């Protein structure tokens, strides 16, 4: 019965979505390739000992650029989703920390900047060394950027364009990239997800309204574009063999696994509240056969695909019956907030006891606009 209600809710939501789509002022222009007012880096990792990543250390280089000819300010939030005991998986007895730490950056006209998650960046005008030595601190420092709050650290970074007084603005001047650099010098790089600001409706308060038609918290309606209604991931079935390795006849065996990172669009940095989002997955294999499963994302979720809907390992090649699949993800009901995400593939080849791993990150595809909108609540004034 509950399931039937859920299905009806999805159907009604879809119909509602179709209608609201005509009038909702927030558009579905979350983007990974245009300058925006909010940047979301869904997946950051720092792990000097490889505790969370099979013994391979990892750190993240973050790049942000100002694409305008004016000075730009941004208010950034790290969200630390590392479990309290990092050596054990997240669970009721080992919750994620969901701790936010925020800081501000300033970029001059067209200025690119970067920092490393593990060390942050000092605001030191005297550290401009030549690139013949180490120029990793050369350039105008964007401000004091704190290092990751723990080792290991897993979580998210969100940067919001503000004016010189700290009030959010819809400048659409920021772009960003994150590079996960592993201990073997393999790298996975993805573009930050950008949420475009709407120029006429941003009231500059600490409640940022992403899409939707307004409400008590959003008296001026949508201030930013809406999060997508559907995310699509095209992927290998879990543990499928790598066709390139097979065609080249390299190694004894190979397999591909995919890690999916999802973060809710709605975040409350003021009250540190993380409402859970139930995400439905619709999987289509190469034979057009469909499967579905679901999971709950609270604050930050990072899953190997074969741990989603873990009964029967639905996304494994043995269950799906084909090497490639398309997975569409949608919040279970319109009331659930939207999600954003990124995927990372791990290709492994084995030969005579040795293992080589190739890694690559991919941005997800987004379609549609969430009808009810999402809200990011910033810490208020003291």
């Amino acid at each position, binding site marked *: 019965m509950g399931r039937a209600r859920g299905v009806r809710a999805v159907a009604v939501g879809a119909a509602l*979505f*179709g209608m609201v789509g005509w009038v909702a002022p927030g558009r579905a222009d979350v983007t990974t390739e245009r*300058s925006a007012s909010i940047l979301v880096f869904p997946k950051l990792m720092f792990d000097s000992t490889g505790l969370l990543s099979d013994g391979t250390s990892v750190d993240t280089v973050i790049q942000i650029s100002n694409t305008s000819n004016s000075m730009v300010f941004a208010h950034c939030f790290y969200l630390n989703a590392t479990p309290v005991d990092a050596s054990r998986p997240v669970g009721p007895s080992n919750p994620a920390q969901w701790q936010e730490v925020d800081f501000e950056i300033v970029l001059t006209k067209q200025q690119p900047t970067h920092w490393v998650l593990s060390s942050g960046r000092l605001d030191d005008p005297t550290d401009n060394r*030549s690139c013949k030595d180490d120029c990793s601190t050369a350039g105008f420092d964007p401000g004091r950027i704190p290092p990751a709050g723990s080792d290991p650290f897993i979580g998210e970074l969100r940067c919001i364009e503000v004016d010189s007084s700290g009030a959010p603005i819809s400048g659409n001047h920021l772009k960003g990239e994150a590079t996960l650099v592993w201990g*073997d010098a393999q790298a996975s790089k*993805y573009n930050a997800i950008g949420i475009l600001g709407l120029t006429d409706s941003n009231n500059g308060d600490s409640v940022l309204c992403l899409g939707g038609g307004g409400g008590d918290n959003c008296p001026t309606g949508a201030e930013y574009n809406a999060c997508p209604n559907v995310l699509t991931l095209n992927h290998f079935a879990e543990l499928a063999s*790598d066709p390139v390795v097979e065609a080249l006849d390299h190694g004894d065996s190979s397999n591909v696994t995919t890690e999916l990172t999802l973060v809710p669009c709605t975040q409350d940095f003021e009250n540190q509240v993380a409402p859970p989002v139930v995400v439905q997955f619709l999987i289509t294999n190469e034979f057009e056969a469909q499967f579905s499963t679901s999971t709950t994302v609270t604050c930050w979720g990072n899953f190997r695909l074969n741990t989603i809907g873990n009964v029967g390992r639905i996304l494994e090649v043995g269950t799906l019956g084909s090497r490639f699949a398309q997975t569409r993800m949608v919040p279970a009901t319109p009331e659930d907030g939207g999600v954003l995400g990124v995927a990372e593939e791990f290709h492994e080849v084995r030969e005579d006891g040795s293992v*080589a791993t190739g890694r690559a990150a991919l941005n997800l595809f987004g379609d549609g606009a969430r009808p009810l909108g999402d809200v990011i609540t910033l810490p208020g004034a003291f």
Partner: protein
Amino acid sequence: MMRARARQGSAAVAWRAVVCGVLVVGAMRASADVASDRSAAIVVFPKVVVDISSSPPQIAPPARTDTLIRISNVSDQAISLRCFWTDATPRCVGGVGSCVSDPVSCAPPGVCVPQWQETDFVVHLTAGQPVAWLASRGAVPCAESPRGVPCFPAIPGNLPPNRVLPVPEDPFVGELRCIAVDRNDVPVERNALQGQAEIVRSSDAPLSLDVAAYNAIGIPAYLGANDKDNTLVMGGVCVGGTRAQLPCTSPADCPGGRCPAEYGGCPNLLVLDHFFDGAVDPVSKKTVTTDLTLIPCTTDYLTQAPVTTPVQFLVFNEFEQRFSTSRSVTCFSELKISNIDTRTSERSLFSAAVAGTLTGQTRIRGVADGHPDHGHTLLGLAEEFRQDGGSAAFNLHFHGSRPQSDFIYLP
């Protein structure tokens, strides 16, 4: 919680409602943006690399290399694609040597001549179907395919079996473009395609594997704008009428005039955030270089006449210091960024030693000439390499649009 398909009738209805909602609203709001994170009617893979037979491998970094192409139909109806390989592999004509490994090795009187040769094929996809193939091998129905090689398990009824041509030579450097068509090969306004490419480099001794993946660039169709001919018009402004010279996406936008645009316009500028070449990655302590691939948005598959576009590069370092350079691009260009302005990388303004900071922002602009038959916008891709390490591909950022249209001329 897993649920078998047999118990999913109502869920399937709900899902279809969601998907239809997306498609309907998507139709109402045909976005004007070329994008690599949205479904589209044209998907462009700017960089396809194959080097599996030559010994030693000729394409840097030296490894046996192949590209896996993945395309998905995200609609609930079957769709066909007309796909074009563009072979941009340079050949040493009149001399001895390889232009692939290094143009200098093609000694005079030899000269490196890019081929700019297209070959095309048609693929049919069922509703929601994901497919994949190796650029080196193409793909055939699974019943005819060697074990382990990607193949086509299912195709829509009453259609000939899919047969993807492999790239025409090995080594190969070039691009792939696929266009949504109907069963008669006529272009259709269906933004139902998503694509990814994975460039996989593998070596035996020592055992190594490197994967660089990127999303194909999608060019969306404007609904109600396609005249079904073999000239695909991307972007443009109203011709005549009360809104002359203003951007348009459908005939209704141009009262009294004509809207030429059938597809989204290509971006006015490309923006690349990059490490300067030779910079030391602060995490791995390895030297980083970046390859930039640029292709013109306009492509003439009919007359095989490539367009040459002067390209301006505006570079900013982390001190807000500005540099610029330029270079022409014809059909396809893949260059280490520190070879854009010079063959001596250490002297390039894209080198860390010259720029003086670790990272930079480069704005890339094709120079327009106002010619009515072609535009000069560009599409591109970047791939970052760490010395003795792995690579990572990533999409460029887009900025703005142009009044001039770009065109794809189909045979």
